[in-house]
């Protein structure tokens, strides 16, 4: 039996950058579950989330040749595009309200073996975020998934607006330091 080729971020993005559709297909296979999960959480609408995911991969298709392999991780680069496009779509009012975590845990949840590029650090990251003070965790999620401003987050969490950015920066520092340990 032939060995299954091992997925490699850099090989996939390089192939996509050469205009090789197999490269973008490999990236899609590796990251579409994560991107779709995030898009669905931001947009609360399966169809819109699917459109955004497709658009992001097409955008990456046009940009992959410019990707700097010494820069941020491919996963992070994809997520930057995904979040920006999903929030843009949310702000144009074409999306319904955000769904809860419970709503996203229905039928299409993947087993760990189905998304190999996600498994190594997902549980670790969830543990780290779980350990943040609840208010910081809430602010982080409101900013990330709803794209709210300091003012709106401050109003929701009853934290002075002027403190929101520094609280979020502190939570990011905590996460970064946890990675380093």
């Amino acid at each position: 039996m032939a060995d299954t080729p091992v997925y490699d971020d850099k090989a996939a993005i390089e192939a996509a950058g050469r205009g090789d559709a197999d490269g973008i297909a490999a990236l899609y296979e590796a990251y579409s579950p994560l991107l779709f999960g995030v898009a669905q959480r931001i947009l609360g609408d399966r169809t819109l989330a699917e459109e955004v995911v497709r658009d992001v991969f097409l955008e990456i298709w046009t940009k992959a040749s410019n990707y700097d392999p010494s820069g941020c991780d491919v996963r992070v680069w994809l997520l930057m595009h995904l979040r920006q496009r999903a929030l843009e779509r949310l702000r144009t009012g074409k999306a319904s309200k955000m769904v809860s975590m419970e709503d996203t845990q229905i039928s299409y949840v993947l087993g760990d073996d189905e998304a190999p590029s996600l498994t190594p650090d997902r549980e670790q990251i969830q543990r780290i975020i779980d350990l943040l003070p609840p208010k910081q965790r809430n602010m982080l999620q409101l900013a990330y998934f709803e794209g709210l401003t300091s003012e709106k987050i401050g109003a929701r969490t009853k934290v002075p607006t002027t403190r929101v950015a520094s609280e979020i920066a502190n939570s990011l520092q905590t996460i970064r330091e946890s990675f380093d340990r």
Partner: protein
Amino acid sequence: MSTRPEDLMAGYLLGELFADERVRIESIMATGSVASPEEAAALAAVHSVALYTIPTKPSPRVFENLLASLQGRKRLLPFRDRVAAFLDVDIDTAYTVLTTVDHRVGWTETDSGVHTRTVLCGDAKAEATLVRAEPGNVLPRPSPVTSSELLVLAGRLRDDDETVAGPGDRLSRPQGSRYRHEVQGAAEAVVLMLTREHASEA
């Protein structure tokens, strides 16, 4: 004044960036390049929040739709920047050149069965031509008074030395070169050819 990369990333998350910070983020979006390992780590911390969701497979039609786009009009979009640099034109013109590949009319068939279509004439001395050629076809050669540069957009070309060029590769053919470039494999080749006319020796 911001001192930690986390402060920049908090502004990015909140959509509250100064002009120079916005440029910084746009630069990362464009190429993935980061200013320092600390900035990369802070950015990774931001997007670690995404892993606090449940990965969910989109329906198969999303991939089918994506593949259709990659095989359709948008398949050549990855070459937009390279075509712009190759022809020294702006991005919009490069996009127009690339979408011309799928136009059904305006092509001329050469004696060898290769299809060509002029896409840009810079001046009387330079011309950009799209070339579509089936496997086994040989690309038109430069004349005694012209040289050409090739940018391969699709398919593979093999030269007399058995060197194979694929999508994204650039080839130079000097004035009057008799070097053969033959389409290899099973797929059609699409090539952008920039031809320059030189002063006649006569």
